[in-house]
């Protein structure tokens, strides 16, 4: 497979720009809703790379200013944690 024409926004989950725009156009209004509908940001990096890109698309699609998009949540653990780290 070559580079293709698809433009992925979320590298981890391979979610394309088109999928994210479609989600926003069909009613997703927050980074969280986009994430739940498309999986963008649900990969192992937890959206660290694509979060800003999704925020920008929400601004573009909804006519918001940067900064008007609500800060999307972070959850523990902020790094992957191996289950072996919980010793008996």
């Amino acid at each position, binding site marked *: 497979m070559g580079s293709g024409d698809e433009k992925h926004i979320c*590298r981890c989950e*391979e979610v394309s720009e088109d999928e994210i725009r479609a989600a926003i156009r069909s009613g997703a209004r927050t980074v969280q809703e986009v994430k739940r509908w498309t999986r963008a940001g649900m990969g192992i*990096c937890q959206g*660290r790379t694509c979060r800003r890109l999704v925020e920008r698309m929400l601004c573009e699609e909804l006519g918001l200013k940067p900064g008007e998009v609500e800060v999307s949540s972070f959850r523990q653990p902020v790094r992957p944690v191996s289950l072996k780290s919980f010793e008996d």
Partner: protein
Amino acid sequence: MSGEASSGGRRIASHPILGEPEAAREVTIYLDGAAIAAKEGEPIMSALVAAGVGVFRHTKRGSPRRMFCGIGRCTDCVMTVDGIPGVRTCVTPVREGMLVERQEGAGSWKGGEGHGRR
């Protein structure tokens, strides 16, 4: 040029600012069975880059990946290491005799071998 060594990676022998590399013990790791020279203490990623390895894995959609952030934040560089799939090679140091495999998608458990290790 073979696909194995298409990325043109190599070690920086002498550097105008950093000088000569610190002496490090050489260890051997195995990529899909082929021996690769690595330096003790370095992450798997850099041994593979130095050896000119261009592709670390393919995603479940078949797209090739190597490293992207290089510091453990993204998933791009994950490989199956000693039977454990999904190991971030940019933050996992090499060890003598380590078995590194390119994985397809999430990889497989190899019958569960290797999981008791470490």
